[in-house]
């Protein structure tokens, strides 16, 4: 799958790179869906000997290929929240020298980054690579509810039902973009939803 080039944006919007191998005491990979391809591209036998892969397939067929890399530890689970305790424990028990690699959707990378920051890892020390869906994890600024995998602008908050426009303003702590009511000044005047990058 080809990589998406995000348009230039404001300073709070995250910028993703390309995973590169680094020397480390241990290597933790957290990925979803097509993020698996970024792991397959960067993995070396030396890294995998000290490697731990946590993968959320989201219906994609990469699990066998990742297992074939022969990491020291491997987990595949249905959702990020199913994997969350395992991620938190791994980060809490991590020693100096852990290298962290995140790949896949923005929602997955953002949540894993927030967990790593909670564990005391500065976000600048974390490698990220976007692959697959460009859908966003959105927080409704009004009800604070999170709507996952939003790919249109505007969209309907899955909690309070307000019509929200998709901002580029992003909170690393919440791992979410901000959604704000689009028709507050003209109730019912909601433009037809378009793809976020259309």
């Amino acid at each position, binding site marked *: 799958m080809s990589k998406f080039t995000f348009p230039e944006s404001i*300073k709070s919007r995250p910028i993703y790179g390309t995973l590169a191998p680094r020397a480390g005491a241990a290597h933790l990979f957290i990925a979803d869906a097509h993020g698996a391809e970024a792991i397959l591209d960067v993995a070396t036998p030396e890294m995998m000997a000290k490697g731990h892969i946590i993968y959320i397939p989201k219906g994609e067929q990469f699990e066998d290929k990742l297992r074939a890399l022969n990491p020291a530890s491997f987990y595949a689970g249905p959702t990020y929240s199913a994997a969350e305790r395992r991620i938190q424990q791994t980060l809490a028990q991590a020693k100096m020298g852990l290298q962290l690699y995140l790949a896949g959707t923005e929602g997955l990378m953002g949540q894993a980054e927030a967990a790593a920051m909670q564990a005391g890892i500065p976000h600048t020390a974390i490698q990220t690579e976007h692959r697959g869906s460009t859908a966003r994890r959105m927080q409704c*600024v009004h009800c604070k509810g999170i709507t996952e995998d939003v790919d249109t602008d505007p969209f309907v908050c899955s909690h309070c039902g307000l019509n929200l426009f998709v901002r580029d303003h992003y909170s690393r702590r919440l791992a979410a973009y901000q959604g704000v009511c689009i028709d*507050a000044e003209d109730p019912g005047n909601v433009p037809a939803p378009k793809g976020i990058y259309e």
Partner: protein
Amino acid sequence: MTIQFNDETFRDDYSFYNSERAIKRFPFPFHEDSYMYSVNMEQHRGGPVDSVYEKRFDVDEHYVSEMKDRALVLADDPLRCQSLPHMTLAGWDLLELIMVSKSEDYPDLFELHRDGNTWRWVNKPMGIDHTFTFLDEATLPYGPMEYITRQAQGDFAVLDQRDDNLWMDAGMVTTQADWSLDFDIGMNFFEWHAPVPLAHEKGIFIRALKFLLNIQQGAPARRLNWTMTVNPLLDTSPENYHKWGIQKTTLTPENLGAKQHLRVELQTFFRLPRSNALVFPIRCYLCSFQDLMTVPKWGRRLHRVIRDLPVELATYKGFIDNRPMMLDYLSQFDDGLPTSPGIWPDLDTEPALQK
């Protein structure tokens, strides 16, 4: 002078009003007949007698009612006040700064009696007489930042300084111009300003950050910022925008003078001694157009500024749709005469309206 505190509201029936004294001391933000972003920072070392610049923390006729409004906002949404765990010491620094400043600047309203770490704080306008132990959180009903900012007008952002940047790691934010502390907490200086148009490209934030990183203890700075608000609503939060946004559509040519308010922020910046954090009080002043028009210089100037403001700024500040109606109103108060430089009303020297 003794302050007569107004009994007024900033919501529902909007009984807020400015006395003649409050109008004359309103911090009109335009020093010339046009406006563009600038760092516009100056030392906060007093100012003309009875101006909002005179004291370190200005206390005015709206004090008691503003604190009641803050309590209502917090009861509805406690996340308007947050402090990350490493910011508690900065909260104590802020409590000390405000208590010392107010008791020295307004001895008839506030008293601070210190005996070692045993402090007695008397806030007469709010009826508080409280003895506590400095640096012992268990002796206060709230954390130190929340305790003192429930007794101080304006919002407060408390910024940690590290990695040559400032981080929004604590704050009390209930009178904001449409930004969310709950969303922005933990962001650095460039990130929380990310949505502001034009200013990044002009290098404003790089220069402003450089200035702020170098603010020293005892040498605070200040600047004015402004926007527009329909009705004297203090809590123009994004959280509640779906409720208050509709009020912008209630303007008519008849009610505009009373309903349309110029909203000015007096932003000050103080270095805090123990934490080396920076506190950024953002004090909001509201004045209706019809009250502003009682100062002929401000009437002439406001018309010219609003007329010539770039579209991006009028959009960002949220009044692009209402600008034509505002200009119809304001043009009645612009006779084309020149205006004197500076923000002050100059009532004794500027001519009355010539039409």
